[in-house]
């Protein structure tokens, strides 16, 4: 019995799961997807936050946001639509009320944020840049641009370039641009964000969708449309991560319907350096840890000693 335990421990020691995202070193590639893990504390009863590769918190804006009218969530086949409306407590409340708790853990903290205008993006990024113990920034560019008739920032290459470049100029923290999948050419958007100075890309954000109640003839969401997530979007997410991986030199963080370790490994094979667990947290609050342990088991069983062997390991011929 004790011999078995010793063997198991040495197996672990021989495996390297660490990855780097720009100058940020993660002890393993399992991150949380913004908006699905609250500010970390919501899950701390279930998950040892120290074990996570990184914690990405709910997206912050300059001022608190009230969010959208209900219903905000509706289930669809193997997925869910949400229209939360970017509800959040605002960047200053986060720094004052939520960050002190997160600081106690050994996982890097990546703060997701957004703005209504490029100026707002800059202002939020500046505020976050000046705070200790934030290890990286992830900018959500799938939100509406007040200065362009509320068109989504990340669906226009020129606007994408300008907003990423503006944020790049005000922060030296590792900067991740989270791409919108609601575009014709995801590789183009990826290239633009890279050229504008992003250190890494994360994708995909949710796909815009809709559901209708045929009896009342009303949209099932209070705001009519929402973002689709969950297993239903995984094939699209994989394809997009693969296309982006082939196009850019900076690291790609893959996400979109990852429910288990096999899903995570698929993303790594098509090129994701790290992966983020989103909707799965709602289904299983231990999903992040289950996925981490599942990756370790897969590596052990397949005699993979370094996780880098998986990244981009797809065989196409």
């Amino acid at each position, binding site marked *: 019995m004790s011999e078995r335990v010793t063997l198991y421990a040495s197996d672990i020691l021989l495996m390297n799961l660490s990855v780097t995202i720009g100058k940020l070193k993660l002890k393993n590639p399992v991150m949380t997807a913004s*908006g*699905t*893990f*609250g500010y970390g504390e*919501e*899950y701390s*009863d*279930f998950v040892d936050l120290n074990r996570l590769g990184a914690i990405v918190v*709910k997206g912050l804006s300059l001022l608190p946001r*009230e*969010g*959208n*009218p*209900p*219903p*905000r*969530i*509706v*289930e669809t*086949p*193997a*997925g*869910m639509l*949400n229209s*939360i409306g970017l*509800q959040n407590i605002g960047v200053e409340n986060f720094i004052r009320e939520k960050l002190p708790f997160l600081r106690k853990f050994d996982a890097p903290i990546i703060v997701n944020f957004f703005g209504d205008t490029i100026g707002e993006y800059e202002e939020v990024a500046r505020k976050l840049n000046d705070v200790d113990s934030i290890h990286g920034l992830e900018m959500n560019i799938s939100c509406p641009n007040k200065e362009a008739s509320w068109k989504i920032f990340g669906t226009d290459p020129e606007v994408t370039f300008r907003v990423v470049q503006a944020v790049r100029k005000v922060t030296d923290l590792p900067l991740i641009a989270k791409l919108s999948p609601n575009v014709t050419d995801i590789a183009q958007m990826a290239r633009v964000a890279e050229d504008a100075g992003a250190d890494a890309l994360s994708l995909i954000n949710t796909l815009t969708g809709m559901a209708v109640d045929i009896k009342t003839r009303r949209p099932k969401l209070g705001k009519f449309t929402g973002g689709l997530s*969950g*297993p239903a979007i995984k094939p699209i997410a994989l394809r997009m991560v693969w296309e982006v991986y082939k196009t850019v030199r900076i690291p790609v963080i893959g996400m979109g319907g990852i*429910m288990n370790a096999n899903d995570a490994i698929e993303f790594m094979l098509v090129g994701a350096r790290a992966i983020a667990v989103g*909707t799965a*947290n*709602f*289904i*299983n*609050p*231990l999903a992040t840890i289950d996925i981490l342990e599942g990756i370790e088991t897969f590596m052990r069983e397949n005699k993979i000693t370094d996780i880098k062997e998986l990244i981009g390991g797809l065989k196409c011929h």
Partner: protein
Amino acid sequence: MSKYFRARIKENRKLNKDHNLLILTPLTPIKEPEPGQFYMIGMGREEYDPLLKRPFSPLSSSPESIQILYRIRGRGTLIMSNMGEGSVLDILGPLGNAYPMPARNHIPLVIAGGIGIASLFSLSKKLSKRAYIFYGARKRNELLLMDELKNFAKELFISTNDGSVGEKCDITDILKRFLNSQSYLSDKFLLYLCGPKPMLKAILEIIKDRKINAYVSMEENMACGIGACLGCAVKTVKGYKMVCKEGPVFPIEEIVW
């Protein structure tokens, strides 16, 4: 004791066309809920469809057994109704807040519409013989657990819209009559409500000029159950609140209808 556990279906008893009683055996020790709290129950399906857990209030819950009364209303509950003995479910809970208990001089009135009784049953039991229970539904087969409720109630009032059992009216009509006949006790009444929105709004109309306090258990579509997804927002006078964490029980005057 984890709030995330598995339980085996001991029985999934069909009560009638639309309602089942689910009896579960937890596979690990559980924390016992207070009346008003709920569980998120997932069907643990490999194909992730249905994807999300569903919130249910237990009729009773002990380390040995959890009883869930549910109405087959959508795709999730339909699939759940076909799950057999021995199937294992994923459960998160107990979650949310509880009904505040009445003070000694309060006269509790429990008002349930349809499947709303599932949330109020354990409260009624705990209030043993103290509460006046008002229980309304559209038709006979939607009125359940009548024998138990008769036992728990100081007095039980029943109505159906088709008159198949009890009085043919809305339960709010009976409540109004009761309050009118006992108006000198208005400041002693404490109401506990769970049911469809039209019922809740009608009750608000009845009580708003009488200075009667009421607690209402709210319902919204929900994903995580622990305040992370911000999906189950309900509009209150203090902005949006989350049904799963800040509720499901709210003072009725806080809700913006």
